C-alpha cells in the first residue's frame, strides 16, 4: 500500500542523502520526495511517498526516526490530511486543438502560465488523480514534456472546537 510520510528534519547539509541513503541501502522505494523549509529555518520538512506492506512501512518509519537528524516522523495514512501536487505541462497542440487545451485547462482549474508560437505551458494543482487525469487528456493534444513536483501533504486540524 502507498503511504505518504511527513518528516521534520534538521536543516543541515547531508540530511537529504542520509534519508535517501536509508531508502536505497535497505531496498525501499521512493516514489516522490519533496523538501522545503518550515517556519523555523533550522528545520525542514520532507514529504516522502513510498509503498510497502505494513511491516516495511513500520520499518521505514522506525528507521527514519532512528536517524539522528530526524526530529519527527508522521505516517499520514494514520491521520486525516490534505495533499497536493503540481505539474507543469508543455503542450504542442495542432491548430484545431488549441481551443480544447484551453478549455480543459479551465475545467481543471489550471492556468496557462507561458505560451510560445507553438506551445502552451499549463499549471495544474491537485491530488494525484487529478494530475494524472489531466496528463491523460493532454496526451492526444501532444505533450512535449511535463514536470511534477512530487506530493506535499499536511495534517488537517480537527474541525470540532476543543
Amino acid at each position, binding site marked *: 500500500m502507498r503511504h505518504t510520510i511527513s518528516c521534520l*528534519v*534538521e536543516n543541515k547539509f*547531508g540530511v537529504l*542523502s*542520509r534519508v535517501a*541513503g536509508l531508502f536505497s*541501502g535497505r531496498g525501499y522505494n521512493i516514489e516522490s520526495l519533496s523538501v522545503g523549509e518550515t517556519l523555523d529555518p533550522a528545520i525542514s520538512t520532507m514529504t516522502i511517498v513510498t509503498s510497502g506492506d505494513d*511491516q516495511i512501512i*513500520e*520499518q521505514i518509519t*522506525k*528507521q527514519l*526516526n*532512528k536517524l*539522528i*537528524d*530526524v*526530529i519527527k516522523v508522521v505516517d499520514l495514512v494514520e491521520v486525516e490530511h490534505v495533499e497536493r501536487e503540481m505539474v507543469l505541462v508543455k503542450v504542442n497542440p495542432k491548430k484545431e486543438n488549441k481551443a480544447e487545451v484551453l478549455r480543459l485547462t479551465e475545467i481543471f482549474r489550471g492556468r496557462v502560465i507561458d505560451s510560445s508560437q507553438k506551445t502552451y505551458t499549463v499549471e495544474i494543482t491537485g491530488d494525484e488523480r487529478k494530475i494524472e487525469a489531466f496528463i491523460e487528456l493532454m496526451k492526444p493534444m501532444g505533450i512535449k514534456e511535463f514536470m511534477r513536483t512530487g506530493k506535499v501533504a499536511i495534517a488537517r486540524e480537527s474541525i470540532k472546537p476543543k
Partner: protein
Amino acid sequence: MKKTGSEIFLESLKRQGVKHIFGYPGGVVLNIFDMLYDDKNIELILTRHEQGAVHAADGYARSTGKPGVALVTSGPGATNTVTGIATASMDSIPMVVFTGQVPTMLIGNDAFQEADIVGITRPCTKYNYLVKDVSDLAETIAEAFHIATTGRPGPVLIDLPKDVSVGKVEPVYPSSVKIRSFNPTVEGNPWMIKRAAHEIEKSKKPVIIAGGGVIHSEASKELKQLAELTEIPVTTTLMGLGAFPGTHKLFLGMPGMHGTYYANKAIQASDLLISVGMRFDDRVTGKIAAFAPNAKIIHVDIDPTSIRKNVRVDIPIVGDAKRILADMVAAVKKETKKQWGEIRKSWLKEINKWKKQHPLEYEYSDEVIKPQFVIEKLYELTKGNAIISTEVGQNQMWAAQFFKYNKPRTWLSSGGLGTMGYGFPAAIGAQLAHPNKIVIDIAGDGSIQMNIQELATAVINKLPVKVAILNNRYLGMVRQWQELFFKERYSHTGLDVVPDFVKVAEAYSAVGLRAEKPSEVEPVIKEALKTKAPVFMDFVCDWKEKVYPMVPAGAAIDEMLLLEKEEKKEKKRKLKAVK
C-alpha cells in the same frame, strides 16, 4: 585564550576521559600528531595499518565498555578504516574515529589524498560529521561521544580538515550535550512488562535468548536474577557470550547455525521466547517461517527498528536491557507467587535429555591435532580467566562452542560483519586496556594473515598477546561448505603456501611456538602463557575437521547436521556395500 584546533581536539578527548588513541599519521593530521608528541596524558598507539587501529579501538571498547578512539589521515588512511567502522557498526560498538581531511578550500577538488569519507561511511556509522569551522570543534566532539555511547552504541566519525586543526578560536567546551532529535527510550513500558510477567507465569516451556545488548547495558546480573528466579534456561547469541555464565546449569550455549543441538531444540519446542538485546539475525533464526513455531515472543531492545524487523513479536518492549530486566524481576516477584523449581522440572528434564543425546563433541585423535582440543586445552590451562578474541570462520565457531565464558567483556568477535583480520588487532586493544589479563586471539591460518603486520604493534608496545593459530592450510569454513554442498570442489580455499608462523613471529622479535602432535598442545600453551611477550602458537591441525552442529542455509534450526562418528560412518559404508 585562543587555542588551535589540535589543542581543542586533545583537550576535548581528555574531558571525555580518553587515555589511549590508536592511529596512524599522515599529511593533514601532522598538526594533531605534533601535539601528541609530548602530551603526558594521552598515549597514541601506532598500529601498522589503519584497519588495525580501528579494530584495536574496537577491542579496547568491547573489553572495557568505554568508547574506543582512532585517529588517521585523509584519503587512503580514511578509507582503510571503513572495514573497522562497519565491523563496529554491525556489533553496536561505541567508537569515535577521527579522520584528517584536506583543507576546506580544497574539498571537492580531487586534491591529493582526498576522499569523501563522510559520504563513504554514512551507511556504516551511527552518525558522522565534517567539521568546517574550528569554532564547532569542541561541541562536535562532545556530541560525537554522546551519540556513540547513548542508546544503542555505535561508531561515529569526525572528519577534520587540516585548516580546522590549525585554525584558532576561543574554545567553549559544552558541559552537557542535548540533541533534540536524539532521545532513546530507556525505561520499558510498565504495562508491557506486567504482561511479560504474566506470560512467564503462563508458559510451560520458556527460553531466554540474550544478545550483545545485555553486555552493552551491563545487565548480566539482572539477566541471571531473572533466569534463576524463574528457572528459565538461557541461550546467548554469539554476541551475547559471557552475558550469562557459560558454566551455569541453566545455560544452553549458543543457538543458530552452529549452535548447540539443545539450544536449537529448546527454541523450537518453546512456548515463550524472552529475547533481550538481540536482533534475530539470520544466523540465529535459520528459516524464519519455521522459527520457534509455538512460541510467543517477548522482545526487549533499545533499538525500536530491531523489533518486528525479522520475526513477529507479541510483546515488544523498547528500552534499556538492564532496567527492563530489573523491572521484569520485580514484576515477576509481585505478580506471580510460584514455586518455579517444581513447575520447570519437566521442561528442564526434557532439555537435559537433549543435552545428553547430543552434547558438543568431536572425535579426539592421538595422531593429529583436533582444533577443538586446542580450545579445550586453552580453557583448561587458563581456567577460563582470559579475554578471547577470534577471527572469523571455523576458529570463531569452535572458540564460541568449546571455551566457556563466565563473564561479560571477555569475548571479542566480529559477529555481524564477520570480519577476518579482526581478532588480532582487537586482542591488542584489549591487552592495552587490561595489561594484567591473559588475552588470546583464536585464529585461523587464513584470518591471521589479514592483519599479521600488527605483530609489530604488539611487540613494540610490549603487549603480550597470544595468538593460537588453528592451522589447517585452508579457509576452513568455506572449505567445509564446499565439502558439504559443492561436491568437494575446493575452489580457491586451499592456502597452498602458508608462511612459517614461527619464523614470522621471530622475524618480528616475537616468540613462535609450534605443535604438530596432540601431545605437544599442552606444553606449547603452557610455554606461551609463561612468556611475557607476544606469542604465535602454530597448531598444525586436522584439515578435514568440520564445525558441528550445522544448520544448512535455508533450513529450520532444528534441521541440524550432526557429527557422525567414524564407527557410525563405517557402518553406513558397509550397509551401502551390502545393498
